[in-house]
């Protein structure tokens, strides 16, 4: 599990959300994003967009499955590097 800050000023709108889903689908594990009490299935674009994650948000990434560690690292790096 990793916590990261969303640096992208426009947050997870349509473009980065769909790129995130594509990245997550490379992994077998279930991947979850958490912000406070709200959680999203990171492989579902509707689930991510429903969270309306904005720039500056702190997001916890967790994963459950055979490649969970690799998934968390990859997704954390992806989200931190977003600049769109």
């Amino acid at each position, binding site marked *: 599990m990793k916590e990261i800050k969303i640096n992208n000023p426009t947050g997870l709108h349509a473009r980065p959300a*769909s790129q995130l889903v594509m990245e997550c689908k490379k992994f077998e594990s279930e991947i979850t994003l958490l912000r406070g009490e709200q959680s999203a299935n990171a492989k579902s*674009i*509707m689930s991510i967009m429903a969270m309306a994650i904005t720039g500056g948000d702190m997001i916890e990434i967790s994963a459950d499955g055979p490649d969970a560690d690799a998934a968390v690292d990859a997704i954390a790096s992806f989200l931190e590097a977003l600049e769109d």
Partner: protein
Amino acid sequence: MLNIFKKNTEKKLLAPCDGQVVSIDKVPDPVFAQKMVGDGFAIIPSSNDILSPVDGEIIQVFPTFHAICLKSVDGLEIIVHVGIDTVELKGEGFTCHTEVGATVKAGDKLLTFTPEVLEAHGKNPITPVVITNQEILKSITVLSGTVAAKDVAVTISL
């Protein structure tokens, strides 16, 4: 009567505004054109009110009011996204008429946008209306052409 054995699983999405309905691959943004967000249609608007394409519930309204997520009564998860890269307007030129959790009927007003504001910022107003849980779709037919708001834009079978 044999009708009772026919399952009517044909659903419709209504045009959210007046304009030109086009297939989703015509949207000048690969995220939509390549169906990465979902499958559906797009409309080049010629009116400023964006109406609900389905009966359903509002799941999320983007804080910048340029996009709305809905779930239809038939289980379709839909995003109506007004314009391309309009998140960058940070809400300028958009007014919202609904809220998260609201129940809506097809044709209810969701948003209003000001085309001049989009134009002034160089934003294409083409509006994708996409079903994000596209795996439940058996088929989708886009009725391309000039429409009035609330005309049928797409028929779908599940």
